[in-house]
């Protein structure tokens, strides 16, 4: 028998009217930004749909974790950042942000499919990938732990005198705001006045645990002022709103405004991973304002604003599908790591040392 969840478990949030986006959305968001961010959303969705199919076909090593429903805020962040200058530490549901920040599709497919050619060489998998020396730290599973790492990169750059107007960004979910690591790191970043942008994707459920069992604050953004951090609340299903809020937060961090915390309200449109059917998400949540699909809203917004045509979007989608097929095919042809060739050493130092 399935558990029945009372409607109150789904935290009621103010529902903005799509036809009248929040005032922040009126801030200048240029056409190129929206096209670029949307295209990353679309690529991520197509890529992740393929990953889900591969998982169901038993072709994936380990789990698959989708960002479905979180693409708008993630892509807005990745698009607002500058690769080669900024730091971006994505989390579990940030395929769109990764794509927007310039991660190659092969990095993704190779890691999920266990190719030795991937950035982790088969030593770590799925979403635990990155290129730390290119400004993309590789997340560990312990939530909240990446915030202080990004802070440390910014701190070091400031010490070295090469920070300039770079920013560092990372993402977490509603569940991770309960961790000590989150608190320690956000406080530390605020004490150091670092240009850190933290996106909290409040997707209503941490694995299966609803907001009501996670925190008692009305809106997580209320926490920001307690840390001395600028807080932003945004409708995560609204690409225009995400684009304007994220850009403005990143801009403020860039010009010395200190840490910025953006809370994006949305609903996870998948299970925690593809092994999870999310039966515990009540119908009321799915049918609510936040249950809508940010990709569909994004299409409507782009078309209505004359930023892109339906035909163009169809071409982008087909192109993405083709790129995904190619990236999957290549990763599948590549070798798995070879335990007999593996350097079974966890340290860079080669003992014995001599003086």
């Amino acid at each position: 028998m399935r558990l029945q969840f009372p409607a109150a478990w789904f935290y009621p949030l103010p529902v903005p009217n799509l036809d009248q986006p929040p005032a922040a959305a009126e801030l200048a968001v240029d056409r190129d930004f929206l096209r670029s961010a949307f295209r990353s959303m679309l690529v991520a969705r197509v890529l992740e749909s393929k990953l889900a199919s591969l998982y169901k076909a038993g072709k994936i090593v380990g789990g698959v974790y989708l960002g479905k429903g979180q693409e708008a805020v993630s892509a807005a962040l990745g698009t607002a950042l500058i690769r080669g200058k900024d730091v971006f530490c994505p989390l579990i549901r940030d395929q769109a942000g990764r794509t927007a920040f310039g991660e190659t599709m092969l990095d993704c497919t190779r890691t999920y499919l266990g190719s030795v050619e991937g950035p982790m060489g088969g030593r770590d998998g799925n979403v635990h990938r990155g290129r730390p020396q290119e400004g993309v730290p590789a997340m560990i599973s312990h939530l909240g732990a990446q915030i202080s790492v990004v802070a440390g990169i910014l701190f070091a750059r400031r010490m070295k005198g090469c920070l300039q107007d770079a920013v560092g960004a990372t993402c977490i979910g509603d569940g991770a705001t309960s961790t000590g690591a989150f608190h320690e790191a956000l406080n530390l970043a605020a004490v150091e006045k670092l240009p850190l942008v933290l996106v909290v994707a409040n997707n209503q459920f941490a694995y299966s645990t609803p907001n009501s069992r996670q925190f008692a604050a009305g809106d997580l953004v209320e926490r920001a002022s307690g840390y001395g951090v600028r807080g932003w609340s945004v409708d995560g299903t609204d690409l225009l709103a995400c684009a304007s809020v994220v850009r403005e937060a990143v801009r403020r961090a860039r010009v010395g405004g200190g840490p910025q915390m953006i809370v994006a309200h949305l609903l996870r449109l998948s299970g925690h991973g593809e092994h999870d059917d999310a039966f515990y998400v009540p119908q009321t949540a799915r049918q609510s304002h936040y249950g809508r699909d940010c990709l569909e809203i994004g299409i409507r917004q782009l078309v209505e604003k004359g930023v892109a045509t339906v035909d163009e979007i169809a071409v982008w989608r087909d192109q993405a599908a083709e790129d995904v097929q190619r990236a999957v095919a290549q990763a599948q042809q590549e070798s798995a790591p070879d335990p007999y060739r593996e350097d079974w050493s966890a340290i860079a130092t080669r003992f014995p040392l001599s003086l």
Partner: protein
Amino acid sequence: MSVTYIDAIREAQEKLLRDDERVFLYGQDIATFGGAFKATKGLAALFPGRVFDAPIAEDAMIGLAVGAAIEGLRPIVEMQFADFSSIAFNQIVNQAATHYYRTGVPIPITVRLPSGGTPGSGPFHSQSMEGIYAQYPGLIVLTPATVSDAYHMLIDGVALDDPVVYCEHKFLYRWLKAKTINNEHLPIGQARIARPGKHATVVAYSAMVHEAVRAADRLQRDGWEIEVVDLRSVKPLDLDTILASVARTGRLLAVGESFPWGGVTAEVVSLVTEHGFNLLDAPPQRLNSRDTPVPYHPKLWASHRPTPESICDSLRQLLRF
């Protein structure tokens, strides 16, 4: 003039800050105040912008150090007491220790752990964590026992590309003095014969080296010549030096101040049994603290940790075989 163990740690950090611009110090109360044990006294004034007070956030402190290491710096993080590194455990063992293996990017951070018991310090200011950290792949765990090693192993540890857990013993801070710091020293990873002998080997590290030497001095009056091996680093563990010593003596006692379940002494006994079973004339023995939290009262504390008396007792039993 003499140099204490804590002086050596301070001098090493001064030298590191002077010689290597990648080095910076981060920890609670270490800047103006100079650290709870004065290991960084005066360094903030000598090196402006290189010595930072941290908030009481051990997890974020190590996270920050990892980020700085990714950027090519060499942070030295002072935990005010080793015991509090439990709050940073995740960042040390999961973030720092796995990073090189996962990404190929090394994390050259040094975490200083003021370790071990002193009278009256109680359960939360007395712990020895070396065994726990040594268990994790990706970490180098140093346990200097002498003034010269405190100095050189800190400098050599910071030069390594891997995360280093540097366990400095609080009991030795001011009690242990040397006339001067020797320039000659062994590389990290090599153990030292602290006292030569032929009837039994005591493998010890950190403050227990001195307790073992005292015990050996006492037994000498009865005609026993006890060899004391100072491990210097518990990871890597210099099995060659240990086996060579056991080959000479035929008897092994491993002494550690940490809790008795598992840990460094268990590893030493296990490795010697595995690789040098035929060298042993008697069953190898271990001596650790008692299996309780470290007690506060000096009388209880003195009975909780291995002492020259308890080491002598263990050795007499071992020599009876």
